[in-house]
Structures are given as C-alpha cells and as structure tokens.
C-alpha cells in the first residue's frame, strides 16, 4: 500500500501526514509535488491542510487547477482513494469531487481548538475502525470551515449516509453550541457517493499519537490501512 501526500505551494500539514503514515504506521509514503501529473504508483492520495496559493480568491480555488489535480480527478474516477484534510477538503469541493462548499466561519474568526466528532457511518474505507455513535476528539484549525450545500444536496448526503462526522458534544449530542463554525447540520466530514473520496475539516493528522493529547486521529489512517489490506468496507 502506497500513500502520496500532495504538496501545493502553501501546504503546511504535508509533513504531519507524512509523519503519521511513515513513523506511526510504518507505511510506504511519498510527497507528490503539485506539478506532478501521474499518480499511478499510489493507492491513496492525501490532500493535506494548509493555505494553498494563499487562499486567494476562495480557499482551494486556485489549487484545484494545479496540474496534479487533473491527475487526482482521473485517479478518483478510476476508484483511487482520495483523502482531503482541511484545505484538502476545500480543494476537493472546489474541484467538484465532493459536493457543497466551505465558507467563512460564522464567527468570522479563525477557530483553533479540540472538538468532538460523532461518527455517523463506519461502513466506509475511512471509518471502519470506529463505531457508529462513537465520539472522537480531533483538533480543528480553520477560518473557512462552514460547510454549505443546498437543501437537495443535504437531503442526498443524509439519504446516502455520506455524512461521516458531525460536530457534537462530548456525549455525542448534536447541538448548536458544539458547532464551531456554523456548518449546516453540524457537518464536519463527508464522503462521495462511490465511497472513495473523503474530506473533513478536523485534523486527524495532528492527533494520531497519545503524546499529542488525543490519538483518535489514528483511527482514520488505521481504517484506510485495514480497508486496503483486508478489503473491509470496500
């Protein structure tokens, strides 16, 4: 199993992702420069967090036209696993690989803190080591994390169980006060219809070891590795 971590100008969590995969999970992982146009060697491609192209125009709007993104779209269409974290999620929405858009937080402030996430669906390549209803503790760090989609799209996401994580209280209840950015329906992470492209605003890459306050993020990476080696939840 080989992971590729895409590096855009302005990515700043590429090393976090690389570290987790290489040193926590002992996986084969390589950086992929944004000018690359071939992803054939990889099983999973990660779009990391950061401020690609300075977040100019809209977050992810310029990055989605990087040469590597054509390859990412092809890769995803052929069933390759794509995982976008934070800015990576924003890029996936801009590229149309995931529905909806990420907008400025309702508070208008950058939000940087640990949040609780309720797992809504564990029947996926990204969540198969979690339980449904389990509450993960994972940090967020973003100014544009308000998930927006129109009513029809939200209905579809719910119906197809494409919402993987919602911001919740520690006990798993979904409340307005647990919503750090104003996301519709407290949505923190979604998957595409075919189950191979996932995006989330919180940072599992920043909490995959016990020394870092929470190791809950490790479950997402462990799920991907388990899925690929055992074919679970394919």
């Amino acid at each position: 199993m080989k992971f590729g971590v895409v590096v855009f100008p302005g990515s700043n969590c590429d090393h976090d992702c690389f570290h987790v995969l290489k040193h926590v999970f002992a996986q084969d992982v390589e950086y992929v420069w944004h000018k690359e146009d071939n992803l054939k060697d990889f099983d999973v491609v990660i779009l990391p967090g950061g401020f690609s192209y300075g977040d100019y125009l809209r977050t992810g709007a310029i990055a989605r036209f990087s040469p590597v993104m054509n390859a990412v779209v092809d890769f995803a269409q052929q069933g390759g696993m794509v995982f976008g974290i934070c800015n990576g999620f924003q890029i996936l929405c801009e590229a149309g690989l995931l529905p909806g858009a990420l907008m400025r937080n309702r508070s208008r402030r950058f939000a940087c803190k640990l949040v609780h996430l309720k797992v809504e669906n564990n029947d996926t390549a990204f969540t198969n080591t979690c339980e449904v209803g389990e509450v993960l503790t994972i940090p967020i760090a973003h100014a544009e994390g308000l998930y927006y989609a129109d009513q029809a799209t939200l209905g579809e996401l719910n119906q197809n169980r494409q919402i993987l994580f919602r911001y919740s209280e520690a006990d798993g209840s979904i409340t307005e006060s647990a919503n750090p950015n104003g996301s519709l329906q407290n949505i923190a992470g979604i998957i595409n219809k075919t189950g191979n492209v996932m995006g989330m605003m919180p940072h599992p890459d920043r909490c995959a070891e016990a020394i870092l306050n929470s190791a809950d993020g490790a479950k997402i990476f462990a799920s991907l590795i388990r899925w690929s080696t055992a074919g679970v939840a394919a």
Partner: protein
Amino acid sequence: MVLAKIYITLKNGILDPQGKTVQHALESLGFQRIREVRMGKLIQLRFGEKIGKAEAERLTVAACQKLLANPVIEDYTFELITTNEPRKAK
C-alpha cells in the same frame, strides 16, 4: 480597450456574517434604516487592444464559470466598459 467589471456576490439566502457585522457597525454609528448589508467582490479584467466587446463578453463569462465564481454559493454579474486610455509614456 475593454474593461470588464465583475461583481461576485453570495447567493440569496446564504448567510453573510461579514455583511451582518458591517451592518451592526453602521447601526451603532446611527445608520438605523439599512435593512441589510451584503458584501461581495469586485474583479476587474482589462483586455488587450485587439479584443472587441463580444469577445470580451465571451471570455468574461468563461472566466467566471471556470474560476472566478463558485456556483454553489456565488452569483456573478458584470459590465463591459470601453475605455480610451492614453498609452503610458515610456
């Protein structure tokens, strides 16, 4: 020479926290009769001399659809202005 002035706004019904904050600031300064403030972006494209108005319009629409506006959350309108700018002195 054709100049396109593109106005990008959030779609109706989409919350605009920035506009709300500005509205509250205006209210506190005595501007009580403003029903709503919405913020947007102005993007100006200056075309080369050989580009006529029709071609400028086609290019502007294409640029908006491809990159400048996100149709999930934004609308765009634009105006095309023909200007006779004096050449810059060398």
